[in-house]
């Protein structure tokens, strides 16, 4: 009952504070615009003064270009939004005093934390599904129909990638005394994982490989990177566990 109440409140907050709307608009826009950009890239470049020569060099766009554009645009913006929308989740409630009001009621700290993660994850799932539907529609319209199951898998991989950064930033938000520190933890993790990703032997295990996998789903359907899925899930669980262990001992 308390679980349901806390998750319901968090999802309601996502909507009422326009966070879900921002996600829907941004990811929906890139979902829609990516196939368009792939299709009309030569024309767009030709519009730029002196760009006609380069446009001539660009091969005729294919459905593969639409996939690449979609994965690149949505994953880049989604991960930035994942950090920005999670940074204040806990620290802001502690700063404002709303956490004290709620946690003096029979609401467990673990429930408080996890409901926030679930609500943000839900917002990203809905927004990526909307972006996916728009992207799928325009891809069919401008190129050809991709396999719907693979298209769904592509979006779920991007979602899982976002969940890693939501969990890391949520941990930062629990440990930190300000939103700036929380956002620093999120971007710091992004930087550190990118540095590790420069080693090819390590790269295949990191969350960024999820994005590589989603980009290759159609071009190399047989290639799979399950290890990065398990590592990503491990990071998510570890961050949430660390956040809970820290939060349950914090004095409000």
């Amino acid at each position, binding site marked *: *009952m*308390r679980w*349901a*109440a*806390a998750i*319901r*409140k968090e999802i309601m*907050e996502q909507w*009422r*504070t326009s966070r879900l709307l921002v996600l829907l608009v941004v990811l929906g826009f890139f979902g829609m615009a990516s196939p368009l950009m792939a299709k009309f890239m030569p024309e767009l470049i030709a519009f730029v003064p002196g760009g006609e020569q380069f446009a001539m060099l660009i091969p005729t766009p294919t459905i593969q270009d639409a996939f690449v554009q979609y994965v690149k645009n949505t994953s880049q913006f989604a991960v930035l939004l994942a950090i920005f929308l999670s940074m204040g989740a806990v620290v802001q409630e502690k700063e*404002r*005093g*709303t956490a*004290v*009001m*709620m*946690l*003096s*009621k*029979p*609401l*467990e700290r673990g429930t408080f934390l996890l409901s926030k993660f679930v609500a943000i994850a839900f917002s990203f799932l809905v927004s990526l599904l909307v972006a996916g539907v728009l992207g799928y529609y325009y891809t069919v319209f401008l190129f050809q129909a991709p396999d719907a199951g693979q298209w769904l898998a592509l979006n779920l991989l991007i979602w899982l990638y976002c969940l890693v950064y939501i969990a890391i930033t949520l941990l930062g938000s629990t440990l930190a005394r300000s939103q700036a520190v929380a956002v620093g933890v999120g971007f710091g993790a992004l930087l550190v994982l990118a540095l590790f990703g420069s080693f090819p032997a390590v790269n295949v295990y990191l969350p960024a490989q999820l994005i590589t996998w989603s980009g290759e789903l159609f071009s190399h359907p047989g290639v799979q990177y399950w290890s990065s899925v398990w590592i990503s899930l491990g990071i998510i669980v570890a961050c949430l566990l660390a956040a809970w262990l820290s939060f349950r001992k914090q*004095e*409000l």
Partner: protein
Amino acid sequence: MAAITTHDLVKVYGKVRAVDGLNLTVAEGTIFGFLGPNGAGKTTTIRMLTGMASPSAGSAQVAGVDLGADGQVRQKIGYLPEEPAFYTWMNPLEYLEYVGRLFGLPAKQRRQRARDLLERVDLAQVAKRRIGGFSRGMRQRLGLAQALVNQPVVLFLDEPVSALDPAGRKEVLDLIEGLRGQCTVFMSTHILADVERVCDTVGIIDQGKLIEEANQVELLGRYTVPAFVVECEPEAQAPFQAWTERLRSLPWVVSVNVENSSARVVVRDLRQARLALLEEATAAHLPLRRYEVVTPSLEDVFLRLVGNHKEGQA
């Protein structure tokens, strides 16, 4: 039966002992005023009793539940912090219903309770207006409502009126007074007039230590000074001065402090002096303007106790 008991409760922050061996007993059904100057340890005590901070040492029981017993105490208490903060995007009805959900109230009961409470704190007309636009007084009243959703056994109020204007203070104090007999109220404040108005029992804390705890009437009685204030018309100042000189020589007079045409006479026995002092004044043909037994206010007692405590520490 006691609603709250603490045994040698201690809270240390670095080198500061914010609460220093607090032993407190609050009887069930009373409105307990927890008095102390700023920084005395009032809020820290409340934070420990509500489970928001862990004691460094000692133990406590609230509503029959030991502190730290898996947060069970939260089911039985209500808490209003000094500056209640709300989700500003919610309206009061949604907020109270959400609190009701956390307490596991069934839907019908939850809605009815929320509406009743909004009626009680005079916010029914704005039940569906965003909390973000509320004044401080409205937030404080909503804060009181949310603390009452579960019909708490013990209600903790941390400086509930210190930030309010006189009208807001009166409204909230009336609401607190209305809780008498329904639950035990533990109210921290540094405003003595509020305690005098609503509290039955008083505890005075200074530098983390409880320096006095008693029923308010008993406390005032305990610190009553056997003294009179006598004042005469200004034109009779000369004979008045002579009269006060004479008083100093009487065996039942302890001291006389004179200021212009007013004197404070401390006596050995109030009953004996009640008759004798007036006779003396009549015999001296003094045109009296004022003649009364000094009754101490809670402020006098508080200042005396806190002052004595500080002197003792020095």
